[in-house]
């Protein structure tokens, strides 16, 4: 205001100039952000599109066609493949196999990984060592672990590890993977998955445990809660609810997706064939019935979604305050 000699046009140009510069800078900033967003996210989105969404969409298309030995079918059959799959006793029984598997594996993984986490969390010396030792099997491939389980630990002949131990006790050899009554094959199937995944869930629980404020324990102590079960039951477990729910959901989805250990330990047998092994055998094995396979895969996807949503609703996953 102290410079009345300035012409309005000059003042305008100055102000617009001053105004423009930050705007341009802001635009650059936004463009830069968008750019960096795509640099980081782009490859993954592309991978997701090419390797996940495209196949899912293609699978949806295939599921409405008769598609034997071809991925570009021409005979439209409507919902017939879905009807066939829902009537297919092998598919239904594979869901039964999954249910048995889940009944074993989900609670066992939950309880054992929580127990491990509590133990490892209380260790005062060599913490990193214990955590790594239990986490390491997670890095091992399911196929490799299955081969070790099948060929050396649980083979049915007298020089298998499990049978050698039984031999010391004077017990006869057991054909672990080939015996259906009693169904011993569940033992290798469940133990190999436990060995492989316990460490991972243990780490999730340790992270959860470390988020619990020590003041809660101190308050409990002051109030006279006994260390041990009482503290665990009323402080630790409720505080771990968010982690527990996540572990349960992840675990159940992983169980639905079981393939590697079943395929490598016992192969495609109808008494212990989870849904993915069955779908693989009809659509990608020598049968190449891609129409029915795709319909089955989509039915399975819908079941997983419904169960996960229900589980989340019942257990309160993502509820405010977690």
């Amino acid at each position, binding site marked *: 205001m102290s410079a009345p000699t300035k012409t309005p046009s000059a003042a305008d140009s100055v102000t617009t100039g001053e105004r423009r510069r930050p705007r341009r*800078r802001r635009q*650059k900033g936004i*463009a*830069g952000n968008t*750019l960096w967003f*795509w*640099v980081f996210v*782009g*490859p993954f989105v*592309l*991978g997701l599109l*090419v*390797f996940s969404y495209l196949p899912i969409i293609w699978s949806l298309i295939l599921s409405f066609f008769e598609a*034997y*030995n*071809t*991925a570009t079918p021409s005979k439209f059959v409507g919902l017939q493949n879905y009807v066939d799959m829902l009537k297919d*006793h*092998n598919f239904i029984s594979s869901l039964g196999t999954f249910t048995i598997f889940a009944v074993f594996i989900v609670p066992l993984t939950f309880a054992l990984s929580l127990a491990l986490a509590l133990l490892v969390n209380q260790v005062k010396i060599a913490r990193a060592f214990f955590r790594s030792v239990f986490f390491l099997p997670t890095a091992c491939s399911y196929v490799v672990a299955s081969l070790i389980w*099948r*060929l050396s630990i*649980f*083979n*049915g*002949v*007298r020089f*298998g590890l499990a049978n050698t131990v039984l031999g010391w006790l004077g017990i*006869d050899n*057991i*054909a*672990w*993977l*080939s*015996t*259906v*009554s009693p169904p011993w094959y569940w033992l290798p199937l469940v133990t190999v998955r436990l060995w492989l995944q316990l460490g991972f869930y243990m780490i999730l629980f340790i992270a959860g445990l470390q988020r619990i404020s020590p003041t809660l324990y101190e308050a409990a102590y002051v109030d006279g809660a006994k260390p041990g079960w009482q503290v665990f039951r009323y402080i630790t477990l409720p505080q771990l609810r968010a982690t527990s729910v996540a572990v349960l959901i992840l675990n159940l989805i992983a169980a639905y997706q079981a393939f590697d250990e079943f395929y490598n330990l016992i*192969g495609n*047998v*109808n*008494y212990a064939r989870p849904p993915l092994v069955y779908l693989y*055998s*009809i659509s*990608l*094995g*020598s*049968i*190449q*019935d891609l129409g029915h396979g795709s319909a089955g895969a989509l039915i399975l996807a819908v079941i997983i979604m419904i169960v996960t949503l229900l589980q989340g609703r019942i257990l309160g996953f993502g509820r405010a305050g977690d």
Partner: protein
Amino acid sequence: MPAHVPNAGLSRRDLLKRTGGLAALAALTAACGGNTGRPSSSGGGGGGAKANLSQWYHQYGETGTQQAAQRYAKAYPDANVAVQWTPGDYDAKLASGLLSSKGPDVFEGHFNIAMVKSNQVVPLDDIMADVKDDFQPGDLATNTLDGKIYGIRMIIDPQVIYYRKSLLDKAGIKPPETIDDLISAAKELTTNKVKGIFVGNDGGNVMGGPALYSSGGEYLTKDNKPGFTDARAAQAFGKLHELYASKSILLGAPTDWWDPTAINQGLVAMQFIGMWAVPGMQKALGDDIGVIPFPKLDAQAQPAVYSGGWTQFVSAKSPNIDAAKKFVKWLWIDKSDYQEDWSLNYGFHIPPRKSLAAKASKLQSGVAADTVKLTQDHGYTDNPAWTPKMNTAFGDMLTNVIKKGADPAAEIAKAEKTVNAELSRLFG
């Protein structure tokens, strides 16, 4: 430009270029898919240049086979042939390979009607015309549909039961002649160290076919109806369960029925296996091996020998069908020295050509000669109308009967339903 906005325009362009490159790379890798196994040099067949062919094999267990296959391919003068040797689940890999032109040009496999319906193989009548009569009728029939020959039998693999003569002598047992004999022999030969027989880790599904044929049945009748549904077939499948339940079979071995390790290591006294294993067994056990066919169900039936093997095909999706056919003719019709080498110098297989089989001296003595004789007398080959889907239903039926002890008649009815549905899809 202010110092705190570093070169924004330039780095953006630069980055766009790079991300663009990345996207292009991803699209390229997605589009290229798998390695076809074809030699990578350019040419592609036309214009006088040598064609590039990809030839697929499953993994043969005997040492030297892969090198032999590569040697044959290399010796072929008129095309560059790359051999793809496939460990693991060859059938599944082949099935997906045949969906596109990125699969093999030439491959070994087992013929069935679905391959023709899906236009996966081409007829080979023109290259077979002159030598047709030199093949066994069964081996021609198993590769023929509607009067056209689609494959050339490479090797014949009879599947029989080999036994340790010394162990049977010691127990005072004669080689089994009926299924009941087999079950009781297996029981008697079982000790706490040695099991009676090894029929595969699944408990004996591989013997389902032989058991069916030894009861007088067959997979499909001549007019393509289920041939495994009568009471005698049910009785034969029931016997397989009896064998399984007798606690005299080896289960959970590190290797499966097609590998002679179990009998070679003394884990069993008898093993159901193919003739390919004879050299390996002779090396480990010397002359201590005898052979029987899968025994007959009872006095009114015949023993059965599944005469399996591998057959060479030309893919209908090959970009070089003519070159591929020429190569197949060269290797599996003209080059009889290679065919002889393939049949006799690694594992033992019966050469499908009568002229070669007649002079196969290695198969003219001992247990190999006995096996050849059993195949001539009791051999049966696959029916091309029997598809993998039917075979899976049949296998599920066997698993339920053998391992779970389910009622054979009820299980047969279930399999029959699937087989009939498949038959009506194929034949209307």
